């Protein structure tokens, strides 16, 4: 598929653009709400991350996939994915430095009170970041199509 055909699929619509602009902040807030509720009620990083990722997909539908791709900084996506993993690992390994087992949250209690809840929230946020960035990455990869990969075989990764 050439890039002409791809942009041909995009129809600029004031209604969609306005709606997305209004709805996006609420969707992102809802995503954070779901992530923060992961510790002790239904929800969590996986579901919240997908909702957060869907914000970028809505923007892509409203403003065009290529425009969204240009707007989005790939460094942010990579940092979210790797940073999420590293945050999770750091929280887990930190308790081992304090003499406990992996992810033994309550050892942080000596620094901050109620830290078990905060630590779990932080892990959920980290998972949310990973899931959101992977969802966004998959969306743009699928949108690029297989033709993109065949056209430029030298362009790895």
């Amino acid at each position, binding site marked *: 598929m050439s890039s002409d055909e791809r942009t041909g699929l995009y129809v600029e619509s004031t209604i969609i653009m306005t709606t997305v602009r209004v709805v996006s902040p609420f969707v992102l807030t809802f995503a954070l709400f779901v992530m923060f509720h992961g510790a002790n009620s239904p929800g969590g990083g996986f579901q919240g991350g997908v909702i957060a990722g869907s914000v970028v997909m809505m923007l892509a539908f409203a403003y065009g996939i290529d425009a969204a791709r240009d707007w989005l900084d*790939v460094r942010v996506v990579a940092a979210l994915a790797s940073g999420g993993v590293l945050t999770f*690992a750091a929280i887990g390994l930190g308790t081992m430095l304090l003499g*406990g087992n*992996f992810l033994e949250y309550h050892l942080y209690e000596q620094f901050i009170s109620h830290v078990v809840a905060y630590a779990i929230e932080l892990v959920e946020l980290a998972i949310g970041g990973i899931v959101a960035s992977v969802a966004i990455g998959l969306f743009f990869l699928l949108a690029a199509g297989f033709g993109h990969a065949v056209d430029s075989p030298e362009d790895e*990764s």
Partner: protein
Amino acid sequence: MIEQLPVLLVVLPIVGGSIPLVASLVSDRAGWPVATLTLVGQAGLAGLLAWTVSASGTVSYAVGGFAAPYGIELVVDGLSGAVALLVAVVSLGVLAYARQAGPHSNAFYGLYLLLVAGLTGMTVTGDVFNLYVFLEITGLAAYGLVASGRDASAAVAALKYLIIGTVGASLYLLGVGYLLAATGTLNMADLASKLGEMAAYDSTLVLTAFGLMIGGLTVKVALFPLHTWQPDAYANAPDTVSAFISALVSTVSAYALARLLFSVFTVEFLAAVPVARWALVGLACVSIIAGSALAVSQDSVQRMLAYSSVSQFGLVIAGFAIATPLAVVGATVHLLGHAVMKGGLFAATGVIERKTGATTVNGYAGMGSRVPLSAFSFAVLSLAMVGVPPAVGFVGKWYIVLGAVNAENWPVVAVLLASTLLTLAYFARLVERLYFAEATIHSEETPAEAPVTDGSGQAVSFGMIAVVVVAAALAVALTAAVPAFEQVLRDTLLPILNQ
């Protein structure tokens, strides 16, 4: 530090696997050094852990400080310590091959380390649900690695692998659900004590759980009727990936199957429900015969090796299902030996293809003089796989046969002996081609015409040949390590097998 080792073995490759992604903002070629550093550390930790286990017995670890059976427990005994060490060493060795053979992208090495994390996790876990999680991590990473080939056929093979592999993992998960319904626990040791007590061994619930869990894992091991994903995945993936997953993915799944058999369902279950044992032994025997027959009829060398795995894993599972200490030691030795031999064989096919363009049995004719070192290693590995002494393939098969004789399981003995002849049939044909046949591919017509399977160049580096030669040397040298290893295994297995 020592008591933290089991969890560090899983966390280290996950952390390492997340770095190449960030590193790609700086450099396109950062993946390989990061993976090498991580796996050198991993091999060191796994070696330390295996040494600790062999010196002072089982190490268990409560993740998050939540005591078993409620928390997730990691347990490393002689068996899992050996498999964890194998995973670390083989994945480090394959990296030496990947340096030149590629793929070179950072994303590839991220997936590579993720697969190491999944395999290690499957090895060290002592919790059946946790095993499912790592089974899925292993599966997803393996699908991605198979798809990293340049050809469209790699994508098709990965899709097939994904669909069949997911069905297998789902069956396993369903079985875990039944076990949870029967006993209310997911911890392996706890399950072993509650099964038979809270739910009779021959109750429908436990039998269904056994069928689903073992059935799901046999898909991952690729026993005969459930092997259909495996030849395509091995033959169409880049050579690096073929060597890596043929050495480790099915191996660790077979380890998990043994772990379920002995540490969850236990030998009392096998004694109480003879039909379960006979079903497993029957499946293994069919796999041995059918895998060998299919291997003999293949034209492509890589597909032949893939079908050979179907047959060899039948042998391993038969050893586990007989469940006498001798047979289980034999199956474990053959499991670990097969990983080294099959990985080495796939690596050798990659080298021979790059140098001469030969991919088929007929194409291998006369290549013994064109690529002497690789062809010689290939021949050594082939004979080791057949079970010619003093190679490690002989020791494993010998113990399995002795175990079957001691158990007076004569049909299995017959199949095991026949399988050696069948293995000889397809490997001897190749070795004969390599050394005693007129070349069908001549040197002047090859390099430009050679098919590019993954677009990563045709050059063969010193590292690639070194991997093949080291694998061949190990296939023979490991025999010397068997007596010491047998002692460690017996210490681990005798309590498990109640002998």
